[in-house]
């Protein structure tokens, strides 16, 4: 892990730059101002921002949405829409003066001297062209090589960014690639002209934690090998911590604070930076969730639940496309408690949540909510029962009808179940009561969703779910689309509501730190199955499934002091349509490798079985007892390993 060492300078050690000869400056901007035409005159998105990147360093620009971080970067490359007005006092990118550059010059700079990676690799790749051809085409344009040479160069690039079997993958289409592979291909394309500067705009935001760790490792490695400068734009301070040398914190179009990564993370000067750091849910601190004893009684009981998509063709089995999104899940959740459901994208956690509240009908198995079995009930018979269980979705924008006012949105559930006897005055009073419950007020009644902020919209989503006074709410990634500071507020709101109303939560998320903060118990899901469950603190402190351990290890930690050896999982999860016999995790399992590839892993599927010493915990691993002992030291960032007492 030399890369990590170099990229995380100890606060005490001399900075790398002093020993090396004066590094070349790649990017300098001073007084950058960007404005867009709005309803009433120009709106300033960026108001006088300076930053610079030298060769061989990674500079991160951090900020919440609306801080102007992405706009700043795009403006340097001339990638903003025409209406945008860009001004700067000084701007030098790879030796070219931006203040004098015309569009054609900017294009040349963009292609030859600066590589760019965007957040969403799928929309940046041409879906009807083979990945390799797209890269080879870029090579031809850039370097004027002949076809066969361009092809060889493209294969070489694919290999360089860690795509296995590059000769074969050259011929694949973008949709045949996983998210991580696509991002690797995008990086390969950015490297075509051997740029001295790489601009990465939220390169890992759309990726799972284990894949994010791989991509960040790759960016760091390439930056070392090619001695590039990297401008990393991100909202995630965790990503910054393990990657960047210097950090620029932005807010509302202005730079709030700048400094070395260690300084910003450990000795922030500005209140805003402090608040931002405090809002990030952390794995390496004690959770504030008070441990409540279950008052007996279960609100949710799921047994052997299955959800299949696609169909089996009996006469043409090769055409069968049956996928078990949820493959035999058992869960229990006590009244007014929270169960966190964690897993990477595609593991079936959202489908499980939807199947529990019968938005997607399960193929098989039982769901009992509040003692009533929901299996086999018709849509009509379910309707009155739906007051018992509700859902809050990930994207508050999409989950509210954009044409409705807040009042109408909240009136819908009340009308549907005739919950408010009396006239419009009583109804309005109840709606205001609901708004106040989620920290909003009467003044929001007449607003429409687009007039609210993301956090306010999600509060409306929560209020709508609460309107029917449910016993259980499924929170499907309910805070993951929000900025960290807003996310922290909404999490506090959820905890308060649970205390006041005694509602139980099934909290579905990919972010382990958030889950830890809010949950009593946690269930880890992999390829449609639960691989580990137990009380949240115990599972996080000493995971008993190698997948849980890897997930925990991949979470970036907000500190540069502790360098830890990470378990970086290889590859991506296999497709749920093609699960290997034996343990589904076998091909990515680090523990199996460590134990010398025992045969049982490939032959026998491990069931979720309670631990011998602790009946509250279960794990689906043949070697669950060996997990904690086999962990590389400090690889799991828990409160324990950071030295804090629990």
């Amino acid at each position, binding site marked *: 892990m030399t890369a990590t060492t170099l990229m995380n300078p100890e606060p005490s050690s001399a900075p790398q730059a002093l020993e090396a000869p004066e590094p070349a400056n790649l990017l300098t901007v001073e007084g950058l101002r960007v404005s867009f035409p709005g309803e009433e005159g120009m709106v300033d998105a960026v108001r006088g921002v300076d930053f610079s990147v030298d060769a061989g360093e990674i500079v991160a620009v951090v900020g919440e949405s609306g801080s102007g971080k992405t706009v700043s970067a795009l403006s340097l490359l001339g990638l903003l829409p025409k209406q945008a007005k860009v001004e700067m006092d000084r701007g030098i990118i790879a030796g070219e003066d931006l203040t004098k550059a015309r569009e054609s010059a900017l294009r040349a700079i963009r292609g030859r001297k600066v590589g760019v990676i965007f957040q969403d690799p799928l929309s940046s790749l041409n879906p009807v062209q083979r990945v390799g051809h797209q890269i080879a085409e870029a090579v031809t344009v850039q370097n004027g090589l002949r076809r066969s040479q361009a092809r060889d160069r493209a294969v070489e690039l694919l290999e360089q960014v860690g795509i296995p079997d590059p000769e074969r993958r050259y011929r694949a289409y973008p949709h045949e690639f996983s998210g991580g592979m696509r991002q690797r291909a995008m990086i390969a394309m950015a490297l075509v002209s051997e740029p001295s500067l790489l601009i990465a705009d939220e390169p890992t935001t759309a990726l799972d934690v284990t894949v994010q760790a791989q991509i960040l490792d790759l960016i760091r490695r390439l930056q070392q090998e090619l001695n590039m400068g990297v401008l990393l734009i991100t909202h995630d301070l965790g990503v910054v911590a393990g990657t960047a040398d210097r950090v620029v914190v932005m807010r509302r179009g202005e730079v709030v604070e700048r400094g070395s990564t260690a300084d910003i993370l450990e000795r922030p000067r500005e209140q805003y930076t402090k608040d931002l750091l405090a809002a990030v849910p952390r794995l390496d601190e004690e959770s504030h969730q008070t441990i409540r004893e279950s008052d007996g009684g279960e609100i949710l009981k799921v047994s052997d639940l299955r959800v299949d998509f696609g169909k089996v063709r009996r006469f043409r089995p090769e055409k069968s496309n049956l996928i078990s999104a949820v493959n035999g899940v058992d869960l229990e959740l006590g009244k007014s408690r929270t169960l966190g459901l964690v897993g990477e994208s595609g593991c079936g956690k959202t489908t499980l949540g939807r199947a529990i509240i019968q938005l997607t009908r399960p193929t098989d198995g039982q769901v009992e909510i509040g003692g009533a079995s929901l299996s086999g009930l018709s849509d009509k018979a379910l309707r009155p029962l739906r007051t018992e269980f509700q859902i809050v*979705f990930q994207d508050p924008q999409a989950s509210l*009808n954009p044409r409705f*006012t807040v009042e109408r949105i909240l009136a819908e559930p009340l009308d549907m179940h005739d919950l408010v006897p009396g006239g419009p005055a009583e109804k309005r009073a109840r709606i205001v009561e609901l708004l106040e419950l989620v920290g909003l007020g009467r003044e929001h009644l007449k607003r429409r969703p687009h007039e609210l902020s993301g956090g306010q919209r999600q509060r409306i989503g929560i209020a709508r779910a609460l309107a029917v006074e449910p016993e259980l709410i499924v929170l499907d990634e309910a805070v993951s689309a929000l900025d960290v500071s807003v996310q922290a507020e909404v999490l506090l709101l959820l905890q308060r509501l649970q205390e006041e109303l005694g509602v139980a939560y099934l909290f579905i998320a990919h972010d382990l730190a958030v889950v830890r903060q809010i949950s009593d118990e946690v269930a880890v899901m992999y390829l449609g199955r639960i691989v580990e469950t137990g009380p949240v603190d115990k599972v996080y402190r000493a995971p008993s499934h190698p997948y849980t351990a890897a997930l925990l290890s991949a979470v970036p930690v907000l500190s540069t002091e502790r360098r830890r050896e990470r378990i970086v999982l290889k590859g991506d999860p296999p497709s749920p349509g093609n699960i290997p016999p034996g343990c589904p995790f076998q091909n990515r399992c680090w523990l199996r490798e460590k134990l010398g590839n025992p045969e049982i892993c490939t032959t026998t599927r491990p069931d979720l079985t309670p631990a011998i010493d602790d009946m509250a915990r279960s794990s689906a691993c043949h070697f669950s007892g060996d997990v904690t002992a086999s962990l590389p030291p400090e690889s799991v960032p828990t409160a324990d390993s950071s030295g804090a007492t629990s």
Partner: protein
Amino acid sequence: MTDHRERSRWNPKEMWRAIDRAGMKGVTIAIIIFIAVAFLGPLVWTDSPTQVNLEDAVKAPSLAHPFGTDEYGRDVLARFLGGAKLSLIVGVCSVLAAALIGMVIGSIIGLVGGFTDGVIGRMLDGILAFPALIMGMALALAIGPGALAAGLAVAITGIPWYARVVRSEVLSLREREFIDAERALGASRRHIIIRHLIPAVTGGVAVQASLGVAYAVLAIAALGFIGLGVQPPTPEWGAMITEGRTYLTSGQWWMSIIPGFGILALVTISILFGEALRDHLDPHGKLHF
């Protein structure tokens, strides 16, 4: 609901400002003028459109007859005004009927999907194979030629167009989470269609409908032209063109050209209105022009 009432309260000043903001001032004025001509015109120009006066047959435009007279001596201006009213009423009503029925069918098959979608979808494709003109000829034979047959033909052949637009809109809407949220709250399918889907697709349908009026006017005129539309002596633009056709070559242009101009005006206005509405509702599309 209160909110809805507040918004639709009659406030001409506010409405005019909204129309101005949408960049639809010109086309709105044109529509108002056309409607005024069609409905108020006959009150001002009180000559009968059907009064035969053979002594005055085929007279060139004059003060007594600004648009001249036809082969039976009927006043062409009076017939033009009558034709305007008829085209407007039959065109708009048939399109409205097609749009409403198409919207309901489209929402249902979009939401239900599966087998229902397949069967009704194929039936709609079948109707789509009939041009309005052929359908109009068939209906004219079945129920007798007239305004009803012409209007029905336009309405029936229009339904699949609206149903298809709405169906594809609903297919994308039903994947939106707010529809899932409604289902989770216990909303019935009917509730989702009436309260959420139909209002959401109305804009797109309105655009298509105003363009549809143009096609409806053309189809009705074409039926009239071949004699299977509205029957004489009722004034109808298509039939007027046929009647005047034989005189065109001998210099008596007004009998055909005047109703032809009426058709052109009404078609142009409805297309301009439809396009202005589309640009207003879909401002991003505008950037591509």
